[in-house]
């Protein structure tokens, strides 16, 4: 298992953002759905080692992220795209991806080829020398994805990766996810259920800090067969699970 979480909890003051979650993930693409404020981003930030859990145990890629010695090799094999990508507008696409390649401690001899590959995989080859401030929102998002995959991560965490991408780019991105998911664990937090249906092997649904559903996209669709809300089977399943959890 690349992700092993038991009783994972995160509090901010009195508020419980993530509430005793158990999660075990191996290679594949895992979609994380849920309404705003469900705790998806907080869960991803804990898995990305950006914040520490308040309680529970966590092992990622065989390492304990709370242990200083284990954190470094873990982070070398981690890819993370936050919901709000912070970027330096004066950096070029190549420099930005190279910057994170160096921060992720890719061996110097491999940095250039890794950067080129990441940029090509995200379809930004022709804009490699462009400054980030000259790119559209969708392109910046792809730069964020490029920096997240530059180290061929064993665990890739993507928070709203398709926000700002046009339909054609989203199709390409789903193919990329499936490709990476063959050997790595990819955890995608999203509002877009069609992304989950097209790219994910498994899906989890969060509400109020808890995972209220785990299964395949087909199993989620089956939950909504008789539910009136939603235009597509997955949407109906999503709405049905939420309604049941709230009742």
């Amino acid at each position, binding site marked *: 298992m690349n992700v092993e979480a038991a009783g994972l909890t995160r509090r901010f003051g009195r508020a419980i953002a993530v509430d005793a979650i158990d999660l075990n993930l191996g290679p594949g693409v895992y979609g994380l759905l849920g309404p705003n404020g469900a705790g998806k981003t907080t869960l991803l930030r804990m898995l990305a080692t*950006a914040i520490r859990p308040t309680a529970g145990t966590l092992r990622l890629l065989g390492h304990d992220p709370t242990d200083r010695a284990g954190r470094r090799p873990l982070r070398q094999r981690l890819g*993370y795209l*936050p919901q709000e990508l912070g970027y330096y507008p004066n950096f070029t696409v190549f*420099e930005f991806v190279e910057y994170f390649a*160096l921060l992720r401690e890719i061996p110097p001899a491999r940095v250039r080829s890794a950067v080129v590959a990441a940029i090509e995989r995200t379809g930004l080859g022709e804009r490699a020398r462009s400054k980030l401030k000259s790119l559209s929102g969708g392109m910046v998002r792809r730069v964020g994805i490029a920096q997240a995959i530059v180290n061929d991560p064993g665990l890739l965490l993507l928070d709203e990766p398709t926000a700002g991408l046009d339909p054609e780019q989203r199709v390409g991105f789903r193919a990329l996810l499936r490709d990476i998911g063959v050997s790595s664990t990819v955890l995608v937090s999203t509002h877009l259920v069609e992304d989950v249906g097209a790219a994910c092997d498994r899906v989890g649904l969060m509400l109020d800090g808890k995972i209220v559903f785990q299964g395949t996209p087909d199993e989620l669709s089956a939950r909504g067969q008789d539910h009136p809300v939603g235009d597509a089977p997955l949407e109906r399943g999503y709405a049905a699970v939420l309604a049941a959890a709230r009742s």
Partner: protein
Amino acid sequence: MTRLLRIELRRNASLVLLPVIAVLWLIWPIGPHLTQIALWGSRSMDIQGTVIALGPFAAGAGAWTAYREHRHGACDLLATTPRAAATRGLTTLAASAVWAALGYVAPAVVILVITSQQATWGHPLVLPLLDGLLAVTASSALGFACGRLVPGRFTAPLVAVGLLGLLTLGAEAKTGHVAFVGALSPAYPSVSLDASVFFPVQPDLAVLQCAGAIGVTGAALGATVWHAGARRIGLAVATTGVVLVGAAAVLVSSGHRGADNAIMVPALDSVGVRQPLPYTPVCGGTLLRVCVHPAYEVKLAVLASALNRLAAPLADTPGLPHEIDEGPIYLSQVTTTHSGVLEIPPVFIQGDTLGPESTPVNDTTALAFVDAPGEGPAQADDAQRAVALYLIQQAGADAGPEFIPTSPAIRAAAARLAARSPAARHTWLATHIVAVRAGTADLP
């Protein structure tokens, strides 16, 4: 690390400031100085003095760069990378410091090359130049540390203004032990001008300023590392830096001014009692022989002409000095030796005339022609002031009332003297000058 530094160098905020720094160098007073007398010591200290402008810019740029992660919301993403935050921070700091240092070094090299074509005396003073470089680097590091410790939109301008204030206060350090601490400011000349011309160079203050700058850099680096999470090593480095600054402050406070007007620190004094350096003066002039240090030979003609014009009405009168020697800058007043040689402080020239800064020397020289040896303007009586006022006015300059106190009666007497025919005036001066000097003459 090298590749990371290369990216940081290419995209550092300080790079944007280089044009600003270039403009600063152009408008800096050092520009006009380049056309005047070129002394290696003076030019070296001029270059060091640019820290007062470059330092705040470097600090502001450092603080702005340090705030970058917060400003762009990249903290979360960066926190998930394996490379130590301290390494990342120090690389960014290093890039800022390199550009700040280049902003100092590049124009300094240009000025030194120009000076090498013009210099009349001495050699480049390495310590003041090094001190300036260390101070600019320290400013950049200090700004960066502030930007990391107190990230905010206003940190950069506040740090820049604050540092400018500190440097300015230090540059004003004058006398007394407490004020000597201010002399640690790199904006305070680390070597006195006299020391570079008339005396051996006294390195005490320059050494302490270098130590202070290194200490500030150490404290800033330590704070940056501490903030990045490496608490123990950060605290150790910061403490070492603070101790170094404290030691420099204690040592400079124990100093006193030497004969060459430089701050001497007993604990560092390796030269001991300073004797003026021997030199062969260059002289010129007709009525009065005027002698200057060979370093100032280019101004001899103007100076000799101005002083001879001042003394012209006293030609062939008894007791007139036969020679005027320009001495070191520390001389606070005009003195006359028993052998008829008047020693005066340096006189500044502007083009082919005396500069405005020379008015006090010009006025007190005129007074020295007509009063007792060693007396100043305050001790002169009305007749002495009236004759001195006439000498100054006939030479083409106005006496500043702050240098020679006058009254309506004194001014009227000077006007009466000027109104006489040349022969009558000369007769009066020849007859009365001894009494005037003795303080027993009435107003003309």
